[in-house]
């Protein structure tokens, strides 16, 4: 970057922006594309899921909660696997962008998991007859929610952001054991929650008229998830860059005779 050649104290932190800078330029055009694609897919998905798709033979209209609930559940687990990969990158390669993305990802993941729990609760009351039970599936998803929240809180709990990122990465990797528990809880133990309909080895237990809008809504929510995560990460990179520039300016003001060369804003 153009800041190469500043004094050793700041070159360490400025070097960290080599990658994020390229990231900003690279993803400059992605955000509008992702957002529009998500809007279009979700817009059609709402019409398809809420009006065009058939009722279920035993659950009636209530089955339409599935078009939000199931994508949220998949995103909660898939997003967590993403967080685990970012944590690996952070711990092994000390990738600064992975730290930033993980930090921005966890509140979004917590929101998605909360929506999964909420819609599931709204679905459970009319169908099962209860808002909540402590069966293995529901409890393990609640644990997943707390892992997301815990990660979001932990990475922000340290004065040194690098230390927070490392602790968060360790927590995220330890929490990965919960993901297969969420997935297979309905097979390993008897639960009130029914087993998987789509992600199983044999054919989906779902008529295509219900399956296709579900997959379409999943695509839409995934695009929206990626768009929000990308926007948050870009904002965080820019925020950090602004802060670095401010710090450099403040240091320059404090030590006018220092060896530091001027940093262009």
């Amino acid at each position, binding site marked *: 970057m153009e800041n190469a050649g500043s004094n050793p104290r700041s070159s360490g932190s400025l070097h960290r922006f080599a990658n994020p800078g390229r990231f900003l330029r690279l993803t400059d055009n992605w955000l509008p594309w992702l957002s529009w694609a998500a809007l279009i897919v979700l817009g059609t998905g709402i019409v398809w899921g809420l009006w065009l798709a058939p009722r279920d*033979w035993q659950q009636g209209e209530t089955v339409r909660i599935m078009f939000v609930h199931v994508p949220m559940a998949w995103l909660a687990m898939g997003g967590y696997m993403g967080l685990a990969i970012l944590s690996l990158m952070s*711990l092994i390669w000390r990738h600064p962008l992975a730290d930033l993305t993980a930090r921005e990802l966890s509140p979004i993941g917590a929101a998605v998991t909360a929506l999964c729990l909420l819609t599931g609760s709204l679905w459970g009351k*009319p169908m099962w*007859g209860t808002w909540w039970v402590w069966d293995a599936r529901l409890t393990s998803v609640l644990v997943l929610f707390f892992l997301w929240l815990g990660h979001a809180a932990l990475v922000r709990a340290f004065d040194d952001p690098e230390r927070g990122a490392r602790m968060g990465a360790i927590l995220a*990797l330890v929490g990965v054991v919960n993901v297969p528990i969420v997935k297979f809880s309905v097979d390993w*133990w008897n639960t*009130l929650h029914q087993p998987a309909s789509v992600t199983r080895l044999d054919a989906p237990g779902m008529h295509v008229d*219900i399956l296709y809008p579900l997959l379409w809504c999943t695509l839409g929510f995934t695009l929206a998830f990626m768009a929000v995560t990308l926007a948050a990460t870009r904002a965080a990179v820019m925020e950090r860059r602004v802060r670095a520039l401010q710090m450099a300016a403040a240091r320059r003001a404090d030590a006018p005779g220092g060896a530091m060369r001027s940093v262009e804003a």
Partner: protein
Amino acid sequence: MTRKKRRLYILLLCAIGLGSATALTLTAFQDNLVFFRSPSDIVRETPPPGRAFRLGGLVEEGSVQRQGEYQGRPAIRFRVTDGAHAIPVVFTGVLPDLFREGQGVVTQGMMGEDGTFRAREVLARHDETYMPPEVADALKRSGHWNPAQGAAPPAANWNTLDPQRPPAGQRSGS
């Protein structure tokens, strides 16, 4: 060995340790993590009267009776079966929408002295098949599936089924 490689190996080692610890714990808890017990479990090992537990299974065909009183309110009596054994249940209160004969239920309560399970709460289970009512009708009409006798046939047979037409090879006329 570079530092990156060493970090990778340390993480792999931790993953193996954590994974096997979790696997062992889950295996140890296997029997305690059940949400409900089946009638066969109860017949094999009857919990003492006054001890609350959950009983799960299917509502036996033709066993639902709405007569008499239980705790001063209209009683609902039915039998919960898992095929091998059945346990009579008495309940009063609001049943979930999905409650019907042949449906999976989970009831919470305790055994009475007379061998009847006194339920405080009845929850409905449903299976993982979703299909339009017309397809369910077509399957039932063609004799491919009786909901009271368990789950629907493999979805490969019907998930492209046109609701307007009965399944292939069946008599026509709807």
